């Protein structure tokens, strides 16, 4: 089996458990993104794969081989760090050549491989420069080049774009996407806390929280069908609106009652045991629309703030049952007076219902 397999991977620093047993299979050539809030253990997991942190428990297989006790350089991985981690006293060429020189590779071969990487990343004009004479974007390209030269089975990226400004971030992101396309057999594991990077780059996203995997799936799979409240609110921007509710009728469709007494029928199957239990109703801001005519609204409340961004309008609505206003993202420009009543509706198939444990009914 090619690719990676993580089996019950754990990490503890002394008495503190940081990763609580992660199971994950990654196919050869896949682009996997770890996302999660800061401090959830993304870097720790990646560094265990790299071999920079010891694995406290579980098994890590790369390309079918158990690598728990194999040093980083023998694992067939290359890593790109957030801070670039270039060797400041070496030229761009020497930075990229360092690994091959350590491995006592032939000088002509080094030259060829570094030249290739430099060509892919358009670094040829800078080969003689020291890192300090490069811009942030160029430095990160050198770091990526250094990884390419190692010709690894698995590329590991730890927030590689976080130190770049917004425009460069987009450009470098596209470059990484192209790089993956040009090397279809290389597996890439990419850590970020930025869900836009995750959504745009990933074949599959692994959502982590507090050292556990919350959900693994394709970007759109996670967006359309989050397994629980955490994923629902983490993926998508602005975050999904969550309204406390009560399940009043179960069956092939589920009827819930909202705090203001309104009833909503969601086309989601539910077991009869759930009847009468507390639940959460979830709806994404972009799935809300204004009720036309006098159809029955799903939600209604008072407008507290309107943000017109041109292509879209964000409307913040105070509704019963929530301290924070609910957000609706409407296409085009809309005018509302603050304090006026607004009636919102949504397509039934866009609705999400989570049980009292926060698990989506679709995943029960």
């Amino acid at each position, binding site marked *: 089996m090619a690719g990676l397999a993580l089996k019950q991977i754990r990490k503890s620093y002394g008495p503190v458990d940081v990763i609580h047993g992660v199971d994950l299979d990654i196919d050869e050539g896949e682009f996997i993104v770890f996302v999660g809030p800061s401090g959830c253990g993304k870097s720790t997991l990646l560094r265990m794969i790299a071999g*920079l942190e010891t694995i406290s428990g579980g098994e890590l297989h790369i390309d079918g081989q158990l690598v728990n006790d194999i040093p980083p350089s023998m694992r067939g991985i290359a890593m790109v760090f957030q801070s670039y981690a270039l060797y400041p006293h070496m030229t761009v060429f020497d930075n990229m050549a360092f690994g091959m020189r350590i491995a006592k590779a032939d000088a002509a071969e080094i030259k060829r491989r570094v030249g290739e990487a430099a060509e892919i990343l358009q670094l040829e004009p800078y080969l003689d420069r020291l890192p300090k004479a490069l811009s942030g974007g160029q430095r990160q390209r050198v770091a990526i080049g250094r990884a390419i030269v190692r010709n690894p089975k698995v590329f590991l990226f730890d927030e590689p774009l976080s130190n770049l400004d917004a425009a460069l971030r987009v450009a470098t992101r596209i470059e990484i996407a192209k790089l993956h396309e040009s090397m279809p057999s290389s597996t890439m594991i990419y850590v970020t806390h930025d869900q836009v990077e995750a959504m745009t780059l990933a074949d599959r996203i692994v959502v982590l929280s507090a050292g556990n995997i919350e959900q693994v799936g394709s970007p759109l799979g996670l967006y359309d069908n989050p397994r629980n409240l955490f994923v629902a609110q983490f993926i998508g921007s602005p975050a999904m609106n969550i309204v406390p509710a009560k399940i009043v009728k179960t069956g092939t469709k589920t009827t819930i009652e909202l705090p203001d007494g309104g009833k909503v029928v969601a086309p989601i199957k539910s077991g009869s045991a759930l009847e009468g239990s507390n639940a959460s109703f979830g709806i994404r801001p972009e799935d809300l629309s204004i009720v036309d005519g006098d159809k029955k609204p799903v939600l209604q409340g008072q407008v507290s703030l309107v943000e017109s961004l041109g292509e879209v309008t964000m409307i913040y609505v105070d509704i019963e049952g929530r301290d924070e206003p609910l957000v609706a993202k409407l296409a085009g420009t809309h005018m509302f007076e603050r304090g006026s009543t607004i009636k919102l509706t949504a397509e039934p198939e866009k609705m999400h219902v989570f049980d009292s444990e926060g698990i989506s009914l679709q995943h029960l």
Partner: protein
Amino acid sequence: MNPAILAILTIIIGVGGCVGYFYFSNQLLDKVIFPARGPNIGRNINRANMVRPWLFLFPAIFALGLYLAYPVFATLWLSLTDRDQGGAFVGLANYSQMSSEPKFWEAIGNNMLWLIVVPAMSTAFGLLAAQLTDRISWGNIAKSMIFMPMAISFVGASVIWKLIYDTRPENQDQIGVLNAVWVWFGGDPQTWLTIEPWNNFLLMVVLIWIQTGFAMVILSAALRGVPEDTIEAAIIDGAGPFQIFFKIKIPQIMSTIVVVWTTITIVVLKVFDIVLAMTNGQWGTQVLANYMYDKLFRSFDWGVGSASAMIIMLLVSPILVWNVYNANKEMR
């Protein structure tokens, strides 16, 4: 008067004087010379701010001038005069007399030897100690021990090492550690400090012992400043511990190594107390500073003494300039 009262008085006068100087000179500048009012207010404020740095620098410049610059010129003058002729100008006669003395050339030669051995060994041992003590749990205790000699005066250190090199007549117990070890291995007791040319190295050991602590402290801070992720990147690139040390860490702290090296070099050029206390320049261990002391304060020959002082200064200056240049580069 009671010395304690005297000390307190000195502190009050000294600190009060400094505060008073800064306060009143600034008041004078801002209120009287360039007052921040009237038609030229903007220009006055600018001028006052241009003068102010000099106000602050003046005491230091004055003291340095009095205690450093003036003596340099006075020494230069003395080196061109002869005391026996009532201080008459004699040109370079002192220098030519000095260069005809074998003891002077011995001192120059020994100084060069010190210059090569001591900074190199101190820096190397300091680097080694810095790297190794960072890796062990009792590293801080080890560091304190290695740094301790820095707190001992050169003369004190010399006394300690003189005991280590001590020799007793053959029928007595050897109290010197070196002889004790030597005899234990079956040798005859030696009077170590008289064995040329090795006695020079025995003296150097004292300074290396003292300066290693200094090198270790500075280099250990520099080593900690090496970004951890460049080391991790090297680990992933397959570098072993020695390659990481020599190819990643050392190049990144090279400018600090140069500063440490040159700083110790300057100490070495001035080395005096150790030689004075241990051999007083006998048995081929003379060095420039002790030679100067001999001439100035034992032969009372201020001409040749000053001439040798000028030679020391000439040797120190370029290294000092280089040291300051590197230290500046380090800070940027």
